[in-house]
């Protein structure tokens, strides 16, 4: 079965493509290890030799500053050599090109590829065609998944809340196009979250989303009632206006997160956003910058969590290398 593609023959995680199919133990290990990597960022010399002599290629077929930068910092803190490639794909013969590109880079003895692409399934495709010593980390594929983002979100939640089993979590906005939401839903589910809610107009809720174990709301006020965590999603207004939502004004009136709306949630609610935020579209400035907001902490945590994930996929190889010595 192909869904096992991110594991090697011994059942070890060798790629990080999707949260779906991982177990609670694996997620907890990644989060626990990330805790220990956090302290590295606070030291004077922010480097450990875990990936020394390894090469990591950031292969981004879609623009990104934040994600690519945190991957780069994470890899450098683990002492890996990092190459950043912002490639663009031509509209013709894409498939052939992307496989050729990565095979060429693989021939240069790359150990880890961090891939972002606007087509769902690209990282799966590449993982399928790579030799076993090459590791793929999915940095966002189309509308499918963005698993490292979800892990840093879980990490951030865990630092502020005790037990997922007690939590009510709301994910708000464009669920349909969001790879972040899909990964978050899987991660929250695996960690045993009590109540996962997705909130948005029906044009932005994918069909049968309930089957992923969530409750759906189209009324933001109702959906936010008593929640402990609010996870906002970025709205890609430019490709939606007039088609999936009538206007930014109407959207903000119904689905924008304002101070009044935050009051419907639990008093200790935390507000998160994967960034970059659209102030005044999906979230009011006073909420984004307010005391419940963890938006900047998410960015910091992203480095430690990505270090943890890189270490995890390289784990098997590092240990076998040590055994060789």
């Amino acid at each position, binding site marked *: 079965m192909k869904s096992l593609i991110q594991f090697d023959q011994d059942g070890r995680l060798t790629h990080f493509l999707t949260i779906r199919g991982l177990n609670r133990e694996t997620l907890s290990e990644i989060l626990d290890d990330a805790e220990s990597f956090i302290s590295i960022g606070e030291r004077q010399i922010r480097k450990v030799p875990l990936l020394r002599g390894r090469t990591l290629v950031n292969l981004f077929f879609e623009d990104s500053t934040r994600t690519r930068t945190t991957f780069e910092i994470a890899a450098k803190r683990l002492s890996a050599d990092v190459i950043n490639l912002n490639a663009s794909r031509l509209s013709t013969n894409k498939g052939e090109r992307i*496989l050729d590109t990565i095979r060429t880079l693989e021939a240069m003895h790359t150990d880890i590829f961090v891939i972002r692409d606007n087509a769902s399934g690209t990282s799966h495709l590449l993982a399928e065609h790579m030799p076993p010593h090459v590791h793929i980390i999915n940095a966002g594929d189309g509308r*499918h998944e963005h698993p490292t983002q979800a892990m840093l979100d879980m990490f951030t939640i865990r630092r502020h809340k005790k037990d997922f089993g007690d939590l009510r979590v709301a994910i708000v906005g464009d669920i349909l196009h969001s790879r972040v939401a*899909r990964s978050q839903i899987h991660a929250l589910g695996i960690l045993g979250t009590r109540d996962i809610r997705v909130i948005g107009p029906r044009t932005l809720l994918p*069909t049968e989303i309930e089957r992923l174990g969530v409750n759906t709301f189209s009324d933001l006020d109702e959906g936010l009632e008593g929640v402990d965590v609010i996870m906002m999603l970025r709205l890609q207004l430019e490709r939606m206006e007039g088609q999936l939502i009538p206007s930014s004004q109407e959207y903000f009136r119904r689905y924008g997160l304002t101070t009044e709306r935050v009051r419907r949630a639990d008093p200790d609610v935390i507000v998160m956003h994967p960034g970059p935020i659209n102030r005044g579209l999906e979230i009011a400035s006073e909420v984004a910058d307010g005391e419940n907001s963890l938006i900047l902490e998410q960015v910091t945590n992203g480095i430690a969590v990505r270090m943890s994930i890189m270490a995890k996929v390289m784990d098997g190889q590092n240990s076998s290398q040590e055994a060789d010595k």
Partner: protein
Amino acid sequence: MSVLIKGGRVIDPANNIDQIGDLFLSHGIVASLGEEPAGFSPDETIDARNLIVCPGLVDLQARLREPGEEHKATLETELTAAVAGGVTTVCCPPDTDPVIDTPAMVQMIKQKARAIGLAHVYPIGALTRNLAGQQLSDMAALGDAGCVAVGNADQSVDNTLLMRRAMQYAATFNLNVFLNALDPWLKGNGCVHEGEVSTRLGLPVIPEAAEVVALARELALLETTGASGHITQVSCARSVEKLAEAQTRKIAVTAAVSAHHLHLSEQDIGEFDTMCHVIPPLRSVQDRDSLRVALADGIIGAICSDHQPHRLDAKLAPFSESSPGISGLETLLSLALKLTEEQIVDLPRVITVLTAGPARILGIDAGHLSPGARANVCVFDPHIEWRVDATEFYSNGENTPFNGEILKGRVMFTVVDGSIVYRNRHH
């Protein structure tokens, strides 16, 4: 040349025949069944004991890729694949390059196929010029050149008035209209069924409504124009209901289903298996089951291969960018026979929907073994199990989601116009 097919179980649904007997072929036609014609001396005898002898299969939809896409496949390779699959009559949609919208194109394809001498090819003529959906094609001339049906392949005819006129005009010249019911706006850039799998994988969707809305339009137009229409592929339960209702009201509409839609569902896509990227998309298990029932009930009258050979590159891409389609000619019979294993339909019914059924839809004299009929015959062993190995396909297309699967039933001999054009080299 005379051929004796001896001792097989002859199933000829059009003549209500299911008996053990000898089939005598001579001068390219069926001479008789059972009784040896006077003076018959066979040049070749096929020992058909424990085998099934039936009319050659009639496939209503197979892309042969020629002309225009010879880098994918040619008439020669794909017609070889056809006869290896027991198919003796193939319809090719008009979306070749150039499009089949002139008599010259029809004649060229027919002549070339005749020269190859394997399966018979019936080109479907274009319904609109260059399939652009803007102007009617010269349908009467296409009919004179040998087209028995016209259609717009998988290009939509957005203008409803033009579609109505196209149907009226086609009906004037007794041309069946092949319709691909898919609303272009609801289809958009979609590639999978809207459901649990699309939501999980984040793939753009082709909702069931894309088919149902378009089908409703075509049925309304067929009813008011009195034209005869054929829905080239149905994929969902709601379409089956609409078809059943239309047939009850005596609207002249028939439908086919692809062999893969009878066996696969959206779940088979798993984690982005591009071999399962087809259009119309694989839908829910419930949809698949209702297609099976509709086939048994006669609402759907034919199984087609929807053969679309690709180079493997075309499937080595992110799902939404991979080319849709399955290389289906060489698994058509086995997949259809699998329905009898699963007790969905009985053997005579399976053979009907592969032979007499599609021939009736086309309105051609084929798909039966009456004395005097063209001697197009398929002889198969219903018991042999074989593992699908796409690298051994005669087709240039190795793109099949059934690769590695064990299927039952294999073509042993295929006869076209009285000549043995295929002998199984494995068994």
